[in-house]
């Protein structure tokens, strides 16, 4: 029942019937379903307040179908701690879609602490989508430390646009060695008294390492957002870009602190940050097609966060 509820909310219930698709569903501190495919190993240990999971993709293995993870809490009050140790071996490739579902949460704290190693020439794509209740009492602490070996690729998207944010405190640290590629994207929509903190730090320490940190945030009501992006390049031909866009409405407050640091004359890092209300021309165009101001703002923000 709990599996079905979580997966239905995430629109993922059909994956249970597909034996060719790897998946794992966790409700609070229980692994309630799991299916693996060759070359993918997930070892789990249930703790009092969560689950430890070690995920390994064997060397050279390409997981063809996207792996589905679901971390849910069906309780109103709980603390869930997920400790992830992820090892994508040399030349392997995996794409993961992860749903974090808290449909009835009133006071729920979700802590995700991940250590991720991506081997030489390996690729890891991780997409995390949150679905929250309408209560503001949720606290989410996604934390990750990621190492990219030579030629490794890491692409991650964090999305929290359904339900109330509550408190979100993202803290990612990524180190990229030679010819590696890191792409981080965060999309968050806050309202009422939500508090959004995003700290993403990338270090391009290897020659020709590349990185892009992108944040898209909308705050309405009395919500607050603080986005702190740091991208450092210390190796020759490292290239990076930080891009932060925040839309504020009502009494929302947004802060953007992009820090770019380059300590090699052959490296190059750029940044752009924009905070403000919805663009007037965008708004007036949609209103001139018959949309009310609120509908136009909604469409623009939904596009930005899509």
């Amino acid at each position: 029942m709990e599996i079905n509820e979580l997966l239905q909310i995430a629109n993922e219930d059909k994956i249970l019937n597909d034996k060719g698709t790897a998946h794992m569903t966790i409700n609070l501190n229980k692994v309630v379903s799991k299916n693996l495919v060759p070359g993918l190993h997930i070892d789990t240990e249930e703790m009092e307040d969560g689950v430890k999971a070690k995920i390994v993709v064997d060397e050279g293995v390409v997981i063809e179908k996207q792996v589905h993870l679901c971390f849910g809490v069906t309780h109103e009050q709980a603390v869930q701690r997920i400790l992830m140790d992820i090892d994508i071996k040399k030349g392997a490739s995996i794409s993961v879609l992860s749903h974090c579902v808290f449909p009835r949460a009133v006071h729920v704290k979700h802590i995700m602490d991940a250590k991720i190693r991506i081997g030489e020439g390996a690729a890891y794509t991780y997409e995390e989508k949150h679905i929250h209740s309408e209560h503001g009492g949720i606290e989410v602490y996604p934390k990750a430390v990621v190492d990219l070996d030579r030629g490794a690729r890491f692409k991650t998207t964090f999305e929290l646009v359904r339900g109330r944010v509550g408190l979100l405190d993202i803290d990612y640290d990524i180190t990229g060695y030679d010819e590696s590629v890191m792409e981080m994207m965060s999309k968050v929509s806050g309202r009422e008294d939500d508090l959004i903190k995003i700290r993403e730090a990338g270090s391009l320490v290897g020659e020709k390492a590349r990185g892009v940190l992108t944040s898209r945030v909308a705050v309405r009501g009395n919500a607050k957002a603080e986005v702190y992006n740091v991208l450092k390049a210390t190796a020759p031909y490292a290239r990076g870009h930080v891009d932060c866009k925040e839309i504020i409405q009502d009494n929302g407050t947004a802060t953007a602190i992009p820090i770019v640091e380059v300590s090699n004359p052959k490296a190059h890092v750029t940044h752009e940050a924009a905070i403000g209300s919805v663009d007037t021309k965008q708004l007036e165009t949609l209103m001139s097609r018959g949309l009310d101001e609120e509908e136009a703002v909604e469409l623009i923000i939904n596009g930005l966060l899509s």
Partner: protein
Amino acid sequence: MAMLELKSINLNLGGKPILSNVNIDFWEGHVHAVVGPNGAGKSTLANVIMGLEGYRKVEGDIIFNGTSIKDMGIAERAKLGITLGWQEPARYEGLTVGKFIMASAKDKSVDTAKDVLEMVGLNPEDYLQRAVDKTLSGGERKKVELASILAMRPRLVLLDEPDSGIDVSSLEKIFDGIKLLRSFGSTVILITHSIAVMKQAEHAFLFCGGKLVTKGSADKIEGFFEGECLPCEHKNAPDEGDIYGN
């Protein structure tokens, strides 16, 4: 009969007169061109009719189908069937062409979006899921905007420099779009300094220095515009007075 009547419109911006005593009737179901050199006040006139922010404090009156719309906001005017195609259309990060068009459409279906994209010469399979952002060229954005206007089926459409950023091969598609609007029964007002665009219209109004200089059939005004207006070195400063003595 006149669908839109501008009565003694005056607009000052930054202490300077931008539009002075403009009186025009636009006829229902007809295509009109408002022509003149850069700075003549043409786009300002379009913005005033649409009621854009910063263009609402006008003297005089704007009558649409017998009702004053002067105090109405943009959305209210749009709900009456008035719309505007921008000279440089807005870009929207993440908003797809399909959703953008459907937001405008009376019939908010994917089929409508596909139909209007085909009307402007864009393959729906290639464009429906693309974002209306910087990955579209200026010409593509112009066509997407025209598609959204076609989907809206407006009663009155203002097209500001519809040929701006459009290559020659695409220009015919824009002109086809104007013909389609007319076939839908829309009243069209083209804001332009292009003879080619002006040729799409039946009636023309020549502006200079924020004033209506002359009006008539598009053929008649075309000759005057080409012969007298385009070669003129007059800089259109509104405070230089009425050089035509009108």
